């Protein structure tokens, strides 16, 4: 089985090209086609599962083609490759992407305005996201990374709510700022790194695999670990890590760079919110795991307390904001920020448990947040009103919906049996173990994060009490006959997500088989790199 990853990335892109030739009136064809795209992708995922060995911590299903190679005379050769591959991290993210894209596609059936444009953008987004998770060449990664932004900008800006223009421009500018910071480091890296196969002429490469090996840095170059340039009071490597961290933290998002997220979520249509929360946020965490940490392990280690602090700050600060939120979707958006804080905490610990937990949290939060945003969408589709205080006693009016709300809320607040618990357990274990093993972060961070668990329960239960318990009544002129229980499509989406969340909560080993070797390998390689850098 060759080129499986290429097929996975370009199936939706081909669909987008096909879509150009389909009449805009044929809404049903577009809805069907998105289903076909997801079906093909699921099939490819099955083939990937069959062709991958989970125990190996290294990259598999590699695809390597020359992209371009420019001879720049004395400076050397600039070489970019079409380099794809999957390890445990990439695998879990790709599986998540395909699942979420399927759900988002079904959820998109309610879109009625300019269906053609919508689905074409959705497919481009699909390909770009999966491409980001597969690319092992920094330039290719960056290309896919940027390709996600534009479809997203239009999807929010055209199909969004009343304040969509403000939200979409905020989203675009914020993420562009992040991209520029990443681009700066990209340029510095390509100047500093040479491919190991280069002989007399230096071959400057974009390959992330080469960049992650401290031996490949050119002596005297700006980011060379042995004698990195000093800028201000810190080394250039320290600054490069910081820029990458800020760039990806915007995407994650981490407090205080998160304010684009609640606005984007509140204005985005339901399926786009689902993709945004479930996948785009993961790209930020993925970037840290794939790029920032492996290339700059020394700086990462030095800054691990900062990373942990930002993580814990996100957990608590966003939870407090969720507690104060009056709009259901805003609450869920803040809960996303809070949960992504756990990813940072796990990452900062640099223990196997913490890294595993961070990846598991990315996967689990992808599923749970998808479910949460679908739930907000169910209500919004009916009444166009998401204000928590306008509802009361919905449990008796929409009993089936209420069951799913319970599942989603309790899964999100970390009830055992659902996937979120496993992730938070591992992250906390990693954060606590760090204090007595590699001594990177103090145990206090874990205690503070546990406080976030309490706040998480508080905002969800308070929402339940206000919206679903008590006697039924609605305010603000909402017509009660609009509040019908779930239809079959909504039921189908919610029950499949609930089951998946339950399965990964009860049988975590299914996924951990892939994540654990990655985490082990990641942690070992980083420790080895740090040792190499400190004692060359």
């Amino acid at each position: 089985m060759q080129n499986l990853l290429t097929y996975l990335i370009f199936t939706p892109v081909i669909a987008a090209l096909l879509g150009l030739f389909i009449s805009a009136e044929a809404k049903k064809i577009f809805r069907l086609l998105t289903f076909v795209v997801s079906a093909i992708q699921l099939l490819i995922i099955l083939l990937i599962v069959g062709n991958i060995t989970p125990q190996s911590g290294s990259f598999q299903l590699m695809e390597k083609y020359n992209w371009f190679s420019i001879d720049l005379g004395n400076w050397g050769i600039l070489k970019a490759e079409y380099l794809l591959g999957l390890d445990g991290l990439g695998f879990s993210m790709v599986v998540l992407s395909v699942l979420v894209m399927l759900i988002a596609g079904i959820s998109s059936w309610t879109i009625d305005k300019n269906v053609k444009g919508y689905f074409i953008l959705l497919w481009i987004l699909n390909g770009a996201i999966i491409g980001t998770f597969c690319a092992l060449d920094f330039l290719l990664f960056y290309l896919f990374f940027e390709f996600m932004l534009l479809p997203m900008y239009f999807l929010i800006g055209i199909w969004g709510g009343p304040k969509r223009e403000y939200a979409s421009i905020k989203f675009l500018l914020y993420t562009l700022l992040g991209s520029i910071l990443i681009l700066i480091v990209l340029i510095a890296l390509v100047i500093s790194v040479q491919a190991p196969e280069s002989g007399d002429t230096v071959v400057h490469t974009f390959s992330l695999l080469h960049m992650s090996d401290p031996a490949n840095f050119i002596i005297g170059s700006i980011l060379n670990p042995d004698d990195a340039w000093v800028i201000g009071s810190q080394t250039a490597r320290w600054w490069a890590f910081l820029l990458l961290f800020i760039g990806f933290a915007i995407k994650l998002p981490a407090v205080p760079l998160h304010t684009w997220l609640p606005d984007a979520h509140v204005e985005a249509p339901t399926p786009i919110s689902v993709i945004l929360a479930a996948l785009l946020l993961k790209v930020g965490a993925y970037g840290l795991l794939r790029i920032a940490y492996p290339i700059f392990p020394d700086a990462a280690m030095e800054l691990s307390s900062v990373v942990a602090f930002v993580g814990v700050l996100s957990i608590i600060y966003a939870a407090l904001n969720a507690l104060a939120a009056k709009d259901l979707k805003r609450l869920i958006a803040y809960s996303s920020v809070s949960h992504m804080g756990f990813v940072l905490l796990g990452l900062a610990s640099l223990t196997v448990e913490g890294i595993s937990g961070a990846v598991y949290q990315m996967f689990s939060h992808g599923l749970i947040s998808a479910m949460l945003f679908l739930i907000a969408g169910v209500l919004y589709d009916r009444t166009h009103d998401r204000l928590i205080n306008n509802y009361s006693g919905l449990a008796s009016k929409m009993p089936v919906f209420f069951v799913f709300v319970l599942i989603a809320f309790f899964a999100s607040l970390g009830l055992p049996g659902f996937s979120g618990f496993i992730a938070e357990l591992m992250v906390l274990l990693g954060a606590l173990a760090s204090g007595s093993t590699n001594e990177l972060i103090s145990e206090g961070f874990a205690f503070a994060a546990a406080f976030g668990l309490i706040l998480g329960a508080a905002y969800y239960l308070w929402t339940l009490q206000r919206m679903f318990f008590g006697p039924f009544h609605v305010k603000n002129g909402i017509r009660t006959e609009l509040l019908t229980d779930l239809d079959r499509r909504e039921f189908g989406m919610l029950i499949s997500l609930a089951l998946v969340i339950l399965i990964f909560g009860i049988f975590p080993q299914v996924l951990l088989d892939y994540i654990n070797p990655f985490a082990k390998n990641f942690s070992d390689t980083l420790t080895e790199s740090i040792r190499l850098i400190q004692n060359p």
Partner: protein
Amino acid sequence: MANLSTSEILLGLVLTLPLISAIVSFLIPARYGWVSSLTAPVLLLVCTILSFILFFTSEALHVTASWFSIGTTEINFSLLLDAASRLMILVVSTVSFLVHLYSTGYMGYDTKITRYFGMLGLFTFSMMGIVLASQLILTFVFWELMGFSSYMLIGHWMEKPAAAKAAQKAFLFNRIGDAFMLIGILITWIHPAGSPDTFWQTTGVLCIFAGVVGKSAQLPLSFWLPDAMEGPTPVSALLHAATMVAAGVFLLIRINPLLTDTALTVIAITGISTALFGAVSALNQFDIKKILAYSTLSQLGLMITAIGIGAKDAALLHLFTHAFFKAGLFLAAGSVIHALSHQLNDQKKSDVQDIRNLGGLRKKLPVTFIVFCIAGASLAGLPMLSGFLSKDSILTAAWNLSIPSAQFIFTGLILIVSFVTVLYTFRLIRFVFFGNESQTTVHESPWVMRIPMIVCAVASGWFIVSVNPIHVSGWFANSFTGAETSLIASGLSAVTVLVAFIAGVLFYWRQPSPQSNSILQNSFGIDSFYQRTIGLAIVRLASAAEATDKRVLDGFLHFIAYTQVSVAHGIAWFDRYIVDGIVDTGARLVKSAGSLTRSFQGGRIQLYIFWAVAGLIIFLFFVLI
């Protein structure tokens, strides 16, 4: 799977039957809700029978299966059946079955009956899990599940705002403890018993104890328990007797080897303060269920004290006896409420649970009355009953403490608690069953409710513990717990109970209606103090965070954006008027110069002659001068 022994299969069934019952109930459509009130009790009956078989036949069992592994750490799904858990599964399944049976009568006309039985099954399943789990992470899993199912059960009548609030409070108070407990479990895992780091061991164990404080409603996290009385009464019976609050005590028994000296001291002090606090509060309540709730607080405090002073067997014994007599008391209280609720609604009397509205029910509800008296007497610690023996064993442990000051303090305080216990039990029985009859048409509850009550009353006798009615000895106590009683303690205890009984008669018999101290009734105002301080602080913090987001972060962002736009406007102005201005001025200069020179060549002969003459004059001027 092939070579499982019979005991292992039985163990698996005992654990999962309540879960199966829950799933069956959830799957039954609402229209056929009555089916669940058949399936659930029957499945639980099977579970109870199996646990009896397991109890009498099985040896100690340890079943382990790998659940998942994190990095190098393996997390197992492992069940342990030892003396303590064998005793507990018996109690849990029996009480749960009785409550299921009772519920078919009590909740008979409830529209959400499937959800009720489903959650009751899940609740029982989680307690079974806690009892059987032999790894702390697994315990925590069931622990949280129990929190969830208790949330749903307490809030069963969720249309009632008070019930919704009580459920939320219960879950949040539990969650505070649980968050610490999770951290504690992880700490004890990283620093296992025997590792040199005692600081982390003590911290870890105390964090776990925080979870126990939440679940077993010890100070300072007690206040959810009285509010939890908003749930249906059978739920209260289950929650107070064999499950939920008992889970905390049982967990402490399980982790007993981990407890360090510092931890034990903290545990003992927490326990005895809660015991005193609960007893005094119970004496000052009017709500029949709240009296029992505070009584549970107090009794749990005694068990925790017992663990703190190193007598885990006494704690287990008291947990065992308490399960039956407290279940009996709650079921009897439920019977009173059930019998009166219709009638009092008609008369628009305020509250059927308020003992000020009750009285003289002993003739109308004879079975309930007798059950209440026997179970109450067991609670009060009257000889010949199980409560006497188990309380004695705790007292004996206190009496046998090696440090004299601790010996006298703990013995004294436990005796005071016993004294107050007799008083509040007497007060309760006096005002509910004696005195003036205020109700006219009251009927005893149906048989499905009467049988569980009677079983609980019978199980309050001494014989379930020991063959000797005033001294722990014989079949039960010795083989399942190491609890023992001494004659001195028994004597002290008996005298206290007697004095308290006389004091109760003298004080309460003449009183026409129950009295209370409002400060004590409202638990010293601690609960409202929490709301005014911590609750308010969190709300303030939340709105501060919201304001920071809107004003500071977004404000900064907007400021940058406006600055940038303003600068852009400035540059646009500069571009238009300065840069363009210079270019335009240059162009205008060239243009005017051009038009000036062009004007020389107007195409008219007069002009040419004029310029020629003028030029000539200027030339001459230069040359001549």
